Protein backbone atom coordinates (compact mmCIF):
# COMPACT_ATOMS: atom_id res chain seq x y z
CA UNK A 1 0.00 0.00 0.00
CA UNK A 2 1.48 3.33 -1.06
CA UNK A 3 2.15 5.70 1.77
CA UNK A 4 0.20 8.89 1.61
CA UNK A 5 2.20 11.58 -0.16
CA UNK A 6 1.71 15.27 0.12
CA UNK A 7 2.67 17.85 -2.48
CA UNK A 8 4.52 20.39 -0.39
CA UNK A 9 6.75 23.43 -0.90
CA UNK A 10 10.27 23.14 0.52
CA UNK A 11 9.87 25.90 3.08
CA UNK A 12 6.55 24.51 4.24
CA UNK A 13 8.01 21.02 4.57
CA UNK A 14 10.80 22.42 6.71
CA UNK A 15 8.34 24.21 8.95
CA UNK A 16 6.14 21.17 9.35
CA UNK A 17 9.20 18.98 9.87
CA UNK A 18 10.27 21.21 12.73
CA UNK A 19 6.82 20.94 14.28
CA UNK A 20 6.84 17.17 13.99
CA UNK A 21 10.26 17.17 15.68
CA UNK A 22 8.67 18.88 18.66
CA UNK A 23 9.93 22.42 18.24
CA UNK A 24 8.80 24.58 21.17
CA UNK A 25 9.51 28.13 20.06
CA UNK A 26 9.86 30.00 16.79
CA UNK A 27 10.92 33.62 16.56
CA UNK A 28 10.22 35.09 13.18
CA UNK A 29 11.32 37.79 10.84
CA UNK A 30 10.23 37.66 7.22
CA UNK A 31 12.68 37.80 4.33
CA UNK A 32 12.26 36.42 0.86
CA UNK A 33 12.68 33.55 0.02
CA UNK A 34 12.26 32.17 3.53
CA UNK A 35 9.01 33.76 4.64
CA UNK A 36 6.84 30.70 4.01
CA UNK A 37 8.54 29.14 7.02
CA UNK A 38 7.18 31.60 9.60
CA UNK A 39 3.91 31.88 7.63
CA UNK A 40 3.33 28.13 7.82
CA UNK A 41 4.20 28.13 11.50
CA UNK A 42 1.92 31.08 12.21
CA UNK A 43 -0.94 29.12 10.65
CA UNK A 44 -0.16 25.99 12.63
CA UNK A 45 0.35 27.81 15.91
CA UNK A 46 -2.22 26.67 18.48
CA UNK A 47 -3.05 23.61 16.40
CA UNK A 48 -3.83 20.66 18.71
CA UNK A 49 -1.66 18.54 16.42
CA UNK A 50 1.51 20.21 17.77
CA UNK A 51 1.13 20.61 21.55
CA UNK A 52 4.87 21.21 21.92
CA UNK A 53 4.70 24.31 19.73
CA UNK A 54 4.07 26.80 22.49
CA UNK A 55 5.60 30.02 21.27
CA UNK A 56 5.38 31.92 18.02
CA UNK A 57 6.48 35.52 18.05
CA UNK A 58 7.35 37.83 15.19
CA UNK A 59 10.31 40.01 16.14
CA UNK A 60 11.02 43.46 14.81
CA UNK A 61 14.30 42.53 13.16
CA UNK A 62 16.64 39.58 12.84
CA UNK A 63 18.65 40.71 15.86
CA UNK A 64 15.60 40.49 18.08
CA UNK A 65 14.74 37.14 16.59
CA UNK A 66 18.09 35.46 17.13
CA UNK A 67 18.40 36.81 20.66
CA UNK A 68 14.92 35.61 21.51
CA UNK A 69 15.96 32.19 20.20
CA UNK A 70 19.05 32.22 22.41
CA UNK A 71 16.97 33.24 25.41
CA UNK A 72 14.43 30.48 24.84
CA UNK A 73 17.15 27.93 24.13
CA UNK A 74 19.00 28.87 27.32
CA UNK A 75 16.10 27.34 29.26
CA UNK A 76 16.51 24.07 27.34
CA UNK A 77 13.65 24.62 24.89
CA UNK A 78 13.84 23.68 21.19
CA UNK A 79 13.96 26.99 19.38
CA UNK A 80 14.41 27.98 15.77
CA UNK A 81 14.48 30.87 13.36
CA UNK A 82 14.88 31.19 9.59
CA UNK A 83 16.20 33.91 7.33
CA UNK A 84 18.08 34.68 4.13
CA UNK A 85 21.40 36.39 3.34
CA UNK A 86 21.06 39.92 4.76
CA UNK A 87 19.27 38.57 7.84
CA UNK A 88 21.80 35.78 8.16
CA UNK A 89 24.53 38.40 8.43
CA UNK A 90 22.65 40.08 11.28
CA UNK A 91 22.37 36.79 13.13
CA UNK A 92 26.12 36.10 13.13
CA UNK A 93 26.67 38.08 16.31
CA UNK A 94 24.13 35.98 18.16
CA UNK A 95 25.43 32.73 16.71
CA UNK A 96 28.96 33.57 17.84
CA UNK A 97 27.76 34.27 21.38
CA UNK A 98 25.66 31.12 21.43
CA UNK A 99 28.47 28.95 20.09
CA UNK A 100 30.67 30.25 22.89
CA UNK A 101 27.99 29.60 25.49
CA UNK A 102 27.19 26.21 23.90
CA UNK A 103 23.49 26.89 23.54
CA UNK A 104 21.71 24.60 21.03
CA UNK A 105 19.13 25.77 18.49
CA UNK A 106 18.39 25.75 14.76
CA UNK A 107 18.94 28.57 12.26
CA UNK A 108 17.85 28.17 8.66
CA UNK A 109 19.46 30.25 5.90
CA UNK A 110 17.65 30.16 2.59
CA UNK A 111 20.52 31.26 0.39
CA UNK A 112 19.63 33.83 -2.22
CA UNK A 113 21.99 35.63 -4.60
CA UNK A 114 24.30 38.12 -2.98
CA UNK A 115 26.27 39.96 -1.77
CA UNK A 116 24.10 42.81 -0.47
CA UNK A 117 20.48 42.51 -1.53
CA UNK A 118 21.39 40.41 -4.58
CA UNK A 119 18.17 38.98 -5.93
CA UNK A 120 15.73 36.20 -5.10
CA UNK A 121 17.32 33.42 -7.11
CA UNK A 122 19.23 30.50 -5.60
CA UNK A 123 22.89 30.72 -4.80
CA UNK A 124 25.26 28.81 -2.57
CA UNK A 125 27.32 31.87 -1.75
CA UNK A 126 26.68 31.76 2.00
CA UNK A 127 28.68 28.51 2.17
CA UNK A 128 31.77 30.18 3.66
CA UNK A 129 29.70 32.28 6.01
CA UNK A 130 27.86 29.22 7.28
CA UNK A 131 30.71 26.75 7.45
CA UNK A 132 33.68 28.86 8.43
CA UNK A 133 31.86 30.66 11.23
CA UNK A 134 30.28 33.83 9.83
CA UNK A 135 30.54 35.59 13.15
CA UNK A 136 33.62 36.69 15.00
CA UNK A 137 35.92 34.45 16.94
CA UNK A 138 36.96 30.87 16.40
CA UNK A 139 33.86 28.71 16.46
CA UNK A 140 32.11 26.21 14.26
CA UNK A 141 28.57 25.05 13.94
CA UNK A 142 27.08 21.97 12.34
CA UNK A 143 25.71 22.82 8.88
CA UNK A 144 23.18 20.58 7.17
CA UNK A 145 22.44 20.84 3.44
CA UNK A 146 19.22 19.18 2.32
CA UNK A 147 18.74 18.57 -1.37
CA UNK A 148 15.08 17.60 -1.56
CA UNK A 149 11.79 18.60 -0.04
CA UNK A 150 11.86 15.19 1.66
CA UNK A 151 15.07 16.17 3.40
CA UNK A 152 13.64 19.59 4.23
CA UNK A 153 11.00 17.72 6.21
CA UNK A 154 13.42 15.33 7.89
CA UNK A 155 16.37 17.58 8.70
CA UNK A 156 14.89 19.73 11.48
CA UNK A 157 14.60 16.63 13.66
CA UNK A 158 18.17 15.67 12.78
CA UNK A 159 19.25 19.25 13.44
CA UNK A 160 17.73 19.42 16.91
CA UNK A 161 19.18 16.04 17.73
CA UNK A 162 22.69 17.09 16.76
CA UNK A 163 22.30 20.48 18.40
CA UNK A 164 21.37 19.09 21.80
CA UNK A 165 23.75 16.15 21.56
CA UNK A 166 26.73 18.44 21.05
CA UNK A 167 25.37 21.63 22.65
CA UNK A 168 25.87 23.71 19.53
CA UNK A 169 23.87 25.92 17.19
CA UNK A 170 23.01 23.98 14.03
CA UNK A 171 22.54 25.74 10.70
CA UNK A 172 20.59 24.54 7.70
CA UNK A 173 21.91 25.94 4.42
CA UNK A 174 19.12 25.73 1.90
CA UNK A 175 19.26 27.21 -1.58
CA UNK A 176 16.38 29.45 -2.60
CA UNK A 177 15.23 26.97 -5.23
CA UNK A 178 14.77 24.24 -2.68
CA UNK A 179 12.84 26.59 -0.42
CA UNK A 180 10.38 27.33 -3.19
CA UNK A 181 10.03 24.08 -5.13
CA UNK A 182 7.13 21.69 -4.50
CA UNK A 183 7.58 17.93 -4.44
CA UNK A 184 5.65 14.85 -3.39
CA UNK A 185 6.85 13.73 -0.02
CA UNK A 186 5.89 11.44 2.82
CA UNK A 187 6.35 13.14 6.15
CA UNK A 188 8.69 10.95 8.18
CA UNK A 189 7.22 9.60 11.40
CA UNK A 190 9.58 11.14 13.90
CA UNK A 191 9.62 10.27 17.56
CA UNK A 192 10.02 13.56 19.37
CA UNK A 193 13.27 13.39 21.26
CA UNK A 194 13.42 14.67 24.80
CA UNK A 195 16.80 16.18 25.52
CA UNK A 196 18.55 16.36 28.87
CA UNK A 197 19.60 19.93 29.57
CA UNK A 198 21.40 19.94 32.92
CA UNK A 199 23.21 23.13 31.88
CA UNK A 200 20.06 25.20 31.36
CA UNK A 201 19.67 28.48 33.25
CA UNK A 202 16.27 28.15 34.88
CA UNK A 203 17.01 29.31 38.40
CA UNK A 204 19.63 28.40 40.98
CA UNK A 205 19.16 25.28 43.10
CA UNK A 206 20.56 25.98 46.51
CA UNK A 207 24.24 26.71 46.25
CA UNK A 208 24.40 25.47 42.66
CA UNK A 209 23.77 27.89 39.88
CA UNK A 210 24.31 27.79 36.12
CA UNK A 211 26.05 30.42 34.10
CA UNK A 212 26.04 30.68 30.32
CA UNK A 213 28.89 33.04 29.56
CA UNK A 214 31.24 33.88 26.76
CA UNK A 215 33.41 36.42 28.57
CA UNK A 216 36.51 34.98 30.20
CA UNK A 217 38.70 37.90 31.14
CA UNK A 218 41.30 35.65 32.72
CA UNK A 219 43.53 34.49 29.87
CA UNK A 220 43.92 30.99 31.25
CA UNK A 221 40.13 30.61 31.66
CA UNK A 222 39.61 31.75 28.09
CA UNK A 223 42.32 29.41 26.83
CA UNK A 224 40.77 26.45 28.61
CA UNK A 225 37.36 27.31 27.22
CA UNK A 226 38.69 27.65 23.68
CA UNK A 227 40.48 24.31 24.00
CA UNK A 228 37.24 22.74 25.18
CA UNK A 229 35.41 24.09 22.13
CA UNK A 230 38.24 22.84 19.92
CA UNK A 231 37.93 19.31 21.29
CA UNK A 232 34.22 19.47 20.82
CA UNK A 233 34.62 20.42 17.17
CA UNK A 234 37.13 17.60 16.70
CA UNK A 235 34.65 15.18 18.21
CA UNK A 236 31.91 16.45 15.93
CA UNK A 237 34.29 16.09 12.99
CA UNK A 238 34.94 12.48 13.92
CA UNK A 239 31.34 11.52 14.54
CA UNK A 240 29.04 13.58 12.36
CA UNK A 241 30.38 13.78 8.81
CA UNK A 242 27.53 12.85 6.48
CA UNK A 243 27.54 12.40 2.72
CA UNK A 244 25.82 10.45 -0.01
CA UNK A 245 27.47 8.75 -2.95
CA UNK A 246 26.00 7.76 -6.27
CA UNK A 247 27.80 5.37 -8.62
CA UNK A 248 31.22 6.16 -7.19
CA UNK A 249 32.41 2.57 -6.75
CA UNK A 250 33.70 2.30 -10.30
CA UNK A 251 33.85 5.96 -11.19
CA UNK A 252 36.67 7.67 -13.06
CA UNK A 253 35.38 11.17 -12.56
CA UNK A 254 33.33 12.31 -9.56
CA UNK A 255 31.07 15.32 -9.38
CA UNK A 256 30.86 17.06 -6.02
CA UNK A 257 27.79 19.18 -5.28
CA UNK A 258 25.24 19.92 -2.57
CA UNK A 259 21.67 21.17 -2.48
CA UNK A 260 19.67 21.45 -5.68
CA UNK A 261 22.87 21.32 -7.75
CA UNK A 262 23.41 17.75 -6.59
CA UNK A 263 20.10 16.78 -8.17
CA UNK A 264 21.23 18.24 -11.51
CA UNK A 265 24.57 16.45 -11.14
CA UNK A 266 22.83 13.16 -10.53
CA UNK A 267 20.99 13.57 -13.80
CA UNK A 268 24.27 14.51 -15.44
CA UNK A 269 25.90 11.35 -14.09
CA UNK A 270 23.16 9.23 -15.68
CA UNK A 271 23.61 10.98 -19.03
CA UNK A 272 27.38 10.60 -18.83
CA UNK A 273 27.09 6.91 -18.04
CA UNK A 274 24.83 6.51 -21.06
CA UNK A 275 27.65 8.06 -23.08
CA UNK A 276 30.13 5.59 -21.66
CA UNK A 277 31.82 7.90 -19.17
CA UNK A 278 32.13 6.39 -15.71
CA UNK A 279 30.92 9.35 -13.70
CA UNK A 280 29.82 9.38 -10.10
CA UNK A 281 28.48 11.89 -7.58
CA UNK A 282 29.68 12.71 -4.08
CA UNK A 283 27.11 14.79 -2.21
CA UNK A 284 28.05 16.38 1.10
CA UNK A 285 25.08 16.31 3.45
CA UNK A 286 26.90 18.00 6.33
CA UNK A 287 28.87 21.00 5.03
CA UNK A 288 30.33 21.31 8.49
CA UNK A 289 31.86 18.99 9.49
CA UNK A 290 32.91 18.77 5.88
CA UNK A 291 32.87 15.09 4.79
CA UNK A 292 36.55 15.07 3.87
CA UNK A 293 36.97 11.47 5.00
CA UNK A 294 34.62 10.27 2.26
CA UNK A 295 36.30 12.37 -0.40
CA UNK A 296 39.74 11.38 0.73
CA UNK A 297 38.89 7.70 0.46
CA UNK A 298 37.70 8.25 -3.12
CA UNK A 299 40.99 9.94 -3.95
CA UNK A 300 42.96 7.22 -2.16
CA UNK A 301 41.09 4.62 -4.16
CA UNK A 302 42.52 6.12 -7.33
CA UNK A 303 39.87 8.49 -8.60
CA UNK A 304 41.87 11.18 -10.37
CA UNK A 305 39.23 13.63 -11.50
CA UNK A 306 36.81 15.66 -9.44
CA UNK A 307 34.44 18.31 -10.71
CA UNK A 308 32.87 20.64 -8.18
CA UNK A 309 29.66 22.37 -9.22
CA UNK A 310 28.51 25.34 -7.10
CA UNK A 311 26.32 28.40 -7.32
CA UNK A 312 29.06 30.82 -6.28
CA UNK A 313 32.50 31.93 -7.44
CA UNK A 314 34.21 29.10 -5.63
CA UNK A 315 33.77 28.24 -1.97
CA UNK A 316 33.29 24.52 -1.39
CA UNK A 317 35.81 23.80 -4.15
CA UNK A 318 38.62 24.69 -1.74
CA UNK A 319 37.39 22.23 0.88
CA UNK A 320 37.29 19.57 -1.83
CA UNK A 321 40.86 20.39 -2.89
CA UNK A 322 42.03 20.08 0.69
CA UNK A 323 40.24 16.78 1.13
CA UNK A 324 41.67 15.35 -2.08
CA UNK A 325 45.15 16.38 -0.99
CA UNK A 326 46.47 16.87 -4.48
CA UNK A 327 45.88 13.24 -5.41
CA UNK A 328 43.54 14.24 -8.19
CA UNK A 329 42.59 17.29 -10.20
CA UNK A 330 39.70 19.37 -8.98
CA UNK A 331 37.79 21.19 -11.69
CA UNK A 332 35.09 23.72 -11.09
CA UNK A 333 31.78 24.70 -12.71
CA UNK A 334 29.96 27.73 -11.37
CA UNK A 335 26.77 29.66 -11.96
CA UNK A 336 25.91 33.08 -10.58
CA UNK A 337 23.04 35.51 -10.48
CA UNK A 338 20.41 33.02 -9.37
CA UNK A 339 20.76 30.79 -12.44
CA UNK A 340 21.08 27.01 -12.26
CA UNK A 341 23.44 25.19 -14.63
CA UNK A 342 21.75 22.92 -17.15
CA UNK A 343 22.54 19.21 -17.16
CA UNK A 344 23.93 19.70 -20.65
CA UNK A 345 26.46 22.25 -19.38
CA UNK A 346 27.58 19.88 -16.63
CA UNK A 347 27.78 16.91 -18.99
CA UNK A 348 29.77 18.91 -21.53
CA UNK A 349 32.30 20.06 -18.95
CA UNK A 350 32.79 16.60 -17.51
CA UNK A 351 33.28 15.24 -21.01
CA UNK A 352 36.07 17.79 -21.54
CA UNK A 353 37.68 16.94 -18.23
CA UNK A 354 37.49 13.22 -18.95
CA UNK A 355 39.48 13.38 -22.14
Amino acid at each position, binding site marked *: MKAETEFVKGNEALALGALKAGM*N*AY*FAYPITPSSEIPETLAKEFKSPEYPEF*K*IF*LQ*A*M*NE*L*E*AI*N*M*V*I*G*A*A*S*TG*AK*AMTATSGPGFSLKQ*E*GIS*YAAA*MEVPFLVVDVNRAGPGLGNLGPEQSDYNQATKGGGHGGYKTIVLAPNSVQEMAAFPALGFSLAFKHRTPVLMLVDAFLGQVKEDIVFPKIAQEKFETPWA*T*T*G*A*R*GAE*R*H*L*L*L*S*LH*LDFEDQRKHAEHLKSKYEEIDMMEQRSEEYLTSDAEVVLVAFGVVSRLCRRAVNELRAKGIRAGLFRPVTLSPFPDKGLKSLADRGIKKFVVVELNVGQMVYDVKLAVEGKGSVDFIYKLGGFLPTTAEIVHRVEMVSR
Partner: protein
Amino acid sequence: MQDKATGEYEVKLGRLPTLTGKPTHYCAGCEHGVLTRLIANAIEELGAREKTVMIDSVGCSVLAHEYINVDAVQSPHGRAPAMMTGIKKVRPDLLVFAVQGDGDAVAIGLLELIYAASRGAPITVFLVNNAIYGMTGGQMAPTTPAGMVTTTTPRGRDLKDTGPVMDASKLLAGLEGPSYVKRVFLPVTPMGSTDLYSARGSLEGAKSVLNAFKVQLMGGFSFVEFVSTCSVNWKMSVLESKRYSFEVLAKLFPPGLYVDKMGVEKK
Protein backbone atom coordinates in the same frame (compact mmCIF):
# COMPACT_ATOMS: atom_id res chain seq x y z
CA MET B 1 40.02 50.95 65.58
CA GLN B 2 36.54 49.72 66.50
CA ASP B 3 34.98 50.78 69.77
CA LYS B 4 34.60 47.93 72.14
CA ALA B 5 31.06 46.51 72.30
CA THR B 6 29.30 44.38 74.85
CA GLY B 7 25.79 42.91 75.01
CA GLU B 8 23.49 40.93 72.73
CA TYR B 9 23.14 42.24 69.19
CA GLU B 10 20.89 41.32 66.33
CA VAL B 11 21.71 41.98 62.71
CA LYS B 12 19.37 44.63 61.40
CA LEU B 13 20.96 44.79 57.95
CA GLY B 14 23.40 42.09 56.99
CA ARG B 15 25.04 39.88 54.45
CA LEU B 16 22.78 38.61 51.70
CA PRO B 17 22.99 35.05 50.31
CA THR B 18 21.97 36.50 46.96
CA LEU B 19 25.32 38.29 46.86
CA THR B 20 28.39 36.19 46.15
CA GLY B 21 30.43 38.48 48.39
CA LYS B 22 33.09 38.90 45.72
CA PRO B 23 34.71 42.35 45.72
CA THR B 24 33.49 44.30 42.70
CA HIS B 25 35.41 45.73 39.77
CA TYR B 26 33.28 48.87 39.85
CA CYS B 27 35.08 52.17 40.39
CA ALA B 28 34.98 53.69 43.87
CA GLY B 29 31.60 55.31 44.50
CA CYS B 30 29.88 53.85 41.43
CA GLU B 31 26.12 53.42 41.51
CA HIS B 32 26.46 50.00 39.84
CA GLY B 33 27.65 48.74 43.19
CA VAL B 34 24.77 50.34 45.07
CA LEU B 35 22.26 48.93 42.60
CA THR B 36 23.76 45.46 43.05
CA ARG B 37 22.93 45.65 46.73
CA LEU B 38 19.39 46.92 46.06
CA ILE B 39 18.69 44.14 43.57
CA ALA B 40 20.02 41.40 45.85
CA ASN B 41 17.92 42.79 48.66
CA ALA B 42 14.75 42.77 46.56
CA ILE B 43 15.34 39.21 45.35
CA GLU B 44 15.74 38.12 48.96
CA GLU B 45 12.61 39.91 50.07
CA LEU B 46 10.66 38.10 47.37
CA GLY B 47 12.35 34.79 48.18
CA ALA B 48 13.01 34.54 44.46
CA ARG B 49 16.67 33.55 44.24
CA GLU B 50 15.94 30.09 42.88
CA LYS B 51 13.65 31.31 40.17
CA THR B 52 15.64 34.30 39.00
CA VAL B 53 17.64 34.48 35.81
CA MET B 54 19.79 37.55 35.28
CA ILE B 55 21.10 38.76 31.96
CA ASP B 56 24.61 40.17 31.92
CA SER B 57 24.62 43.05 29.47
CA VAL B 58 27.66 44.60 27.86
CA GLY B 59 29.12 47.57 29.67
CA CYS B 60 30.12 47.95 33.29
CA SER B 61 27.46 45.40 34.23
CA VAL B 62 29.04 42.65 32.13
CA LEU B 63 30.39 40.98 35.26
CA ALA B 64 27.16 41.21 37.24
CA HIS B 65 27.07 37.42 37.62
CA GLU B 66 30.25 37.64 39.71
CA TYR B 67 28.34 39.56 42.37
CA ILE B 68 24.69 38.48 42.22
CA ASN B 69 24.33 34.82 43.07
CA VAL B 70 21.67 33.72 40.60
CA ASP B 71 21.60 31.89 37.26
CA ALA B 72 22.88 34.18 34.53
CA VAL B 73 23.14 34.31 30.75
CA GLN B 74 25.32 36.71 28.80
CA SER B 75 23.67 38.79 26.14
CA PRO B 76 25.23 40.54 23.17
CA HIS B 77 25.39 44.32 23.48
CA GLY B 78 21.90 45.76 23.65
CA ARG B 79 20.00 42.54 23.08
CA ALA B 80 19.04 41.77 26.67
CA PRO B 81 15.34 42.69 26.31
CA ALA B 82 15.02 40.31 23.35
CA MET B 83 16.80 37.54 25.21
CA MET B 84 14.64 38.06 28.28
CA THR B 85 11.53 37.96 26.12
CA GLY B 86 12.64 34.57 24.79
CA ILE B 87 13.27 33.23 28.29
CA LYS B 88 9.96 34.47 29.70
CA LYS B 89 8.00 33.07 26.76
CA VAL B 90 9.20 29.58 27.58
CA ARG B 91 9.35 30.03 31.36
CA PRO B 92 6.85 32.64 32.46
CA ASP B 93 7.39 31.50 36.06
CA LEU B 94 10.93 32.91 36.20
CA LEU B 95 11.94 36.38 37.35
CA VAL B 96 14.27 37.88 34.74
CA PHE B 97 16.11 41.17 34.74
CA ALA B 98 19.04 42.96 33.19
CA VAL B 99 21.15 45.89 34.32
CA GLN B 100 21.94 47.90 31.21
CA GLY B 101 24.05 50.98 30.68
CA ASP B 102 23.02 53.96 28.62
CA GLY B 103 24.97 52.67 25.63
CA ASP B 104 23.52 49.17 25.86
CA ALA B 105 19.91 50.27 26.31
CA VAL B 106 19.67 53.65 24.63
CA ALA B 107 22.04 53.29 21.69
CA ILE B 108 22.73 49.86 20.29
CA GLY B 109 19.82 48.22 22.06
CA LEU B 110 17.17 50.90 21.65
CA LEU B 111 15.05 48.88 19.24
CA GLU B 112 15.12 45.81 21.42
CA LEU B 113 14.17 47.94 24.44
CA ILE B 114 11.36 49.79 22.69
CA TYR B 115 9.74 46.68 21.28
CA ALA B 116 10.02 44.61 24.42
CA ALA B 117 8.44 47.55 26.27
CA SER B 118 5.81 48.02 23.58
CA ARG B 119 4.79 44.41 23.77
CA GLY B 120 4.54 44.77 27.53
CA ALA B 121 6.87 41.80 27.86
CA PRO B 122 6.90 40.73 31.54
CA ILE B 123 10.58 41.54 32.08
CA THR B 124 12.53 44.14 34.03
CA VAL B 125 15.21 46.48 32.75
CA PHE B 126 17.32 48.58 35.09
CA LEU B 127 19.08 51.39 33.26
CA VAL B 128 22.17 52.88 34.89
CA ASN B 129 22.34 56.25 33.18
CA ASN B 130 25.63 58.00 33.76
CA ALA B 131 25.55 59.97 30.52
CA ILE B 132 28.71 58.43 29.12
CA TYR B 133 30.15 55.12 27.94
CA GLY B 134 31.91 53.87 31.04
CA MET B 135 33.41 50.46 30.35
CA THR B 136 34.93 51.48 27.03
CA GLY B 137 36.70 54.48 28.51
CA GLY B 138 34.48 57.55 28.38
CA GLN B 139 33.03 58.07 24.90
CA MET B 140 29.89 60.03 24.15
CA ALA B 141 26.57 58.33 24.86
CA PRO B 142 23.12 59.28 23.54
CA THR B 143 22.51 60.59 27.06
CA THR B 144 25.60 62.83 27.20
CA PRO B 145 24.60 66.45 27.92
CA ALA B 146 25.42 69.25 25.50
CA GLY B 147 28.89 70.57 26.01
CA MET B 148 30.20 67.60 27.99
CA VAL B 149 33.77 66.67 27.15
CA THR B 150 34.18 63.00 26.34
CA THR B 151 36.89 61.13 24.45
CA THR B 152 34.84 61.34 21.24
CA THR B 153 33.66 64.91 21.90
CA PRO B 154 36.88 66.49 23.08
CA ARG B 155 35.52 69.99 22.38
CA GLY B 156 32.25 69.26 24.15
CA ARG B 157 29.17 67.55 22.73
CA ASP B 158 27.53 69.52 19.93
CA LEU B 159 23.84 68.57 19.74
CA LYS B 160 23.54 69.99 16.20
CA ASP B 161 25.82 67.24 14.89
CA THR B 162 25.10 64.44 17.27
CA GLY B 163 21.39 64.77 17.86
CA PRO B 164 19.45 65.48 21.01
CA VAL B 165 19.98 63.99 24.41
CA MET B 166 17.90 60.81 24.62
CA ASP B 167 15.44 60.50 27.48
CA ALA B 168 14.75 56.80 27.82
CA SER B 169 12.13 57.08 30.55
CA LYS B 170 10.09 59.64 28.61
CA LEU B 171 10.45 57.56 25.44
CA LEU B 172 9.11 54.44 27.13
CA ALA B 173 6.43 56.38 29.00
CA GLY B 174 5.07 57.41 25.60
CA LEU B 175 4.42 53.76 24.67
CA GLU B 176 1.31 51.84 25.58
CA GLY B 177 3.05 48.69 26.64
CA PRO B 178 5.03 49.43 29.82
CA SER B 179 3.37 48.99 33.21
CA TYR B 180 6.00 50.68 35.36
CA VAL B 181 8.45 53.38 34.30
CA LYS B 182 10.29 55.14 37.08
CA ARG B 183 13.33 57.35 37.21
CA VAL B 184 15.34 57.52 40.44
CA PHE B 185 18.22 59.79 41.34
CA LEU B 186 20.45 57.16 42.91
CA PRO B 187 23.58 59.03 44.07
CA VAL B 188 23.94 60.51 47.54
CA THR B 189 22.47 63.97 47.21
CA PRO B 190 24.29 67.07 48.36
CA MET B 191 22.13 69.03 50.80
CA GLY B 192 22.79 72.70 50.39
CA SER B 193 26.03 73.85 51.87
CA THR B 194 26.32 71.25 54.61
CA ASP B 195 28.75 68.40 54.40
CA LEU B 196 25.90 65.97 54.92
CA TYR B 197 24.58 64.11 51.86
CA SER B 198 21.16 62.54 51.71
CA ALA B 199 20.90 58.80 51.16
CA ARG B 200 17.32 59.06 49.95
CA GLY B 201 18.37 57.91 46.47
CA SER B 202 19.28 54.47 47.80
CA LEU B 203 16.08 54.20 49.80
CA GLU B 204 13.92 55.29 46.87
CA GLY B 205 15.95 52.96 44.66
CA ALA B 206 15.39 50.00 46.95
CA LYS B 207 11.62 50.52 46.83
CA SER B 208 11.67 50.98 43.07
CA VAL B 209 13.62 47.80 42.42
CA LEU B 210 11.19 45.82 44.55
CA ASN B 211 8.21 47.44 42.84
CA ALA B 212 9.68 46.70 39.42
CA PHE B 213 9.98 43.01 40.28
CA LYS B 214 6.46 42.97 41.68
CA VAL B 215 5.14 44.45 38.46
CA GLN B 216 6.91 41.76 36.46
CA LEU B 217 5.47 39.05 38.68
CA MET B 218 2.05 40.54 37.97
CA GLY B 219 2.76 40.23 34.24
CA GLY B 220 3.88 43.72 33.31
CA PHE B 221 6.95 45.34 31.74
CA SER B 222 8.93 47.32 34.29
CA PHE B 223 11.74 49.80 33.77
CA VAL B 224 13.69 51.82 36.30
CA GLU B 225 16.22 54.39 35.16
CA PHE B 226 18.83 55.26 37.76
CA VAL B 227 20.44 58.64 37.12
CA SER B 228 23.98 57.95 38.23
CA THR B 229 27.59 59.09 38.00
CA CYS B 230 30.86 58.13 36.38
CA SER B 231 33.54 59.94 38.35
CA VAL B 232 36.46 58.33 36.53
CA ASN B 233 35.30 59.17 32.99
CA TRP B 234 33.87 62.54 33.99
CA LYS B 235 37.28 63.21 35.49
CA MET B 236 35.88 64.29 38.84
CA SER B 237 36.25 63.14 42.42
CA VAL B 238 33.56 60.86 43.77
CA LEU B 239 31.76 63.63 45.65
CA GLU B 240 32.20 66.14 42.80
CA SER B 241 30.48 63.66 40.50
CA LYS B 242 27.50 63.39 42.85
CA ARG B 243 27.20 67.17 42.84
CA TYR B 244 27.44 67.33 39.03
CA SER B 245 24.84 64.63 38.62
CA PHE B 246 22.49 66.44 40.99
CA GLU B 247 22.99 69.84 39.40
CA VAL B 248 22.98 68.81 35.74
CA LEU B 249 21.66 65.30 35.14
CA ALA B 250 18.79 65.42 37.60
CA LYS B 251 17.50 68.44 35.69
CA LEU B 252 18.07 66.84 32.26
CA PHE B 253 16.52 63.56 33.42
CA PRO B 254 13.97 64.53 36.09
CA PRO B 255 13.34 61.75 38.59
CA GLY B 256 9.75 60.66 39.04
CA LEU B 257 7.11 58.04 38.53
CA TYR B 258 6.27 58.16 34.83
CA VAL B 259 4.04 55.10 34.48
CA ASP B 260 2.42 52.95 37.15
CA LYS B 261 -0.45 51.12 35.47
CA MET B 262 -0.77 48.59 38.26
CA GLY B 263 -0.67 51.21 41.02
CA VAL B 264 2.16 49.35 42.68
CA GLU B 265 3.47 52.48 44.37
CA LYS B 266 0.17 53.14 46.04
CA LYS B 267 0.06 49.71 47.68
